[in-house]
């Protein structure tokens, strides 16, 4: 069976809505148990996570923990929660086989807190696995389309 871009977009919008609404544990449950969530270094988006210093290098355990942590008052950078919005565009299905859909897209994420709004310009690649009438994420690699993390200074939200 082959999937349409619209089906993929529906899924990406759903994922984005969970993040924007701070349903972080529901977000984490979109992932397969062998999943990874990665942000490679800005100077080399193709770097290897086992040798290079990434910005985020989460396996399933750590992305679950990331989601739980963000629900706590003691996750100070996100207490109270900032206001987050994902804008997703340029969605392309790169390849699809029975158990692996590769999807590319661009996103702009806004984070507002204490009267400052930071903008994260990104592209992303996801490897999706069909799951009933939806998908699970096996890999999400977000590439920051800026040459450094100045002036945002942190990625305390989920991109």
């Amino acid at each position: 069976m082959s999937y349409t871009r619209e089906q993929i977009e529906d899924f990406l919008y759903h994922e984005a809505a969970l993040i924007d609404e701070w349903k972080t544990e529901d977000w984490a449950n979109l992932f397969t148990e062998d999943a990874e969530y990665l942000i490679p270094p800005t100077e080399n988006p193709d770097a290897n996570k086992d040798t290079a210093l990434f910005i985020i290098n989460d396996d399933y355990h750590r992305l679950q923990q990331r989601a739980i942590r963000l629900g706590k008052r003691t996750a100070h950078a996100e207490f109270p929660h900032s206001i987050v919005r994902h804008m997703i565009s340029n969605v392309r299905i790169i390849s699809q086989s029975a158990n692996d859909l590769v999807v590319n897209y661009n996103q702009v994420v806004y984070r507002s807190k204490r009267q400052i709004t930071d903008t994260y310009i990104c592209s992303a690649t996801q490897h999706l696995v069909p799951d009933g009438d939806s998908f699970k994420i096996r890999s999400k690699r977000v590439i920051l389309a800026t040459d450094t993390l100045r002036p945002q200074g942190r990625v305390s939200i989920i991109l």
Partner: protein
Amino acid sequence: MSQKTSPIPLPSGADGFIRDDRANNEFLVPRKAFTSPEVLAAEYERIFSQCWLYAAHASELPEPNSFVSRRVGGRELIINRDSDGEIHAFFNACSHRGAMVCREKTGKNKWFVCPYHGWAFNSAGTRVAQDNETGFPDGFFDGGSKDLTKVAKLAVYRDFIFITYNSNAGSLSDYLGDAAEMLDLVADQSETGMEVTEGNHEYSMRANWKLLLENSADGYHAMATHASYFDYLQSTNGSFRSDFNPSDIGGACTAFGNGHAAIEYVAPWGRPVAQWVPQWGDQGRDAVNQLMETLIKRHGEERARRIGEKNRNILIFPNLVINDIMALTIRTFQPVNEGYLEVNAWSLAPKEEHADVRKFRQYNFLEFLGPAGFATPDDVEMLELCQQGYKNMPEPMWNDISKGMSKAINGSDDELQMRTFWRRWNALMTAD
């Protein structure tokens, strides 16, 4: 030192700009030191233009003609090796009319050619003759006056490259003094040399630079600021050493001369060199145990255990932090303005590191450190809350940094390391 500085707008008392009351064990720092552009201007002149500053690690320059370009103490530098492998640091500004001659962050260049009018410099900074150059008399470029300008002094200690803009500065080894021993404990983790790994963290904080210095070796804040990080460790099987007891962390702070300080304490978590935790599995245990054996062979049991099993947060005045904790980070930072700083951070590792251990190291680094870790963003939040809190001046005028002042030995959760920084800061800011 120049006498042209306009007066520094801080309340000045018997101890200078700080209140260092040893009789009553009270230590106060004026909040205005964090919010005043005039104080920052004076810091540029009296601190960043006078002290030795960390610039790069020799492993970032692996071959002849390798270079990096970056801001050091607020100034744009090219740090490179010439064709003979000798290390230099040049201002990244053309000797003609000042354009930056290097626009890449890293690479290998035999020549730096200014994009504006095409002046060319070799990797030793020498202005080289162009074909068909007209308008300059014979010999105009001889004698070096049109070469790239070098920083006043450069010195390397155990592959840590330092520079200073002060031609009267004493030697780097005098500057580091006994704090050099802390750099040894880092450099000695490898038999073949340490290297900066691929990928770095370039981020920022909307806070005064001194807030990050204070925070980088502040054991006192760990339990409050990083409660959610300790929750994460608790819910991660095997992330603590099995015999760990939180009351053991203890540790001590050492104040060195010239404003340097370090805390050393028990590591509750795994250390790539060289403390295994169950999370790393049997294969990891073999690799880490082997590392400890080679450390013992090289350094003897006692020093090997100190190198491999102790955490250390090292502050080298004014803006170098080396945190040797669940990973090893070199962190340096500089003010852009009084309320905004830039950070550069790298992961440092033994060149010969086993692939499994390197993987733990990079994974470990991010659980705590870095702009998307489980701790650093909360540090950023705290520093920004402080900076915003200082807007309430003038009524609450002073920060209190007295913790541990009455004790003979300060623990890792006392505040001697910050007092050490501030005493040096005060001495430089009030010197004639």
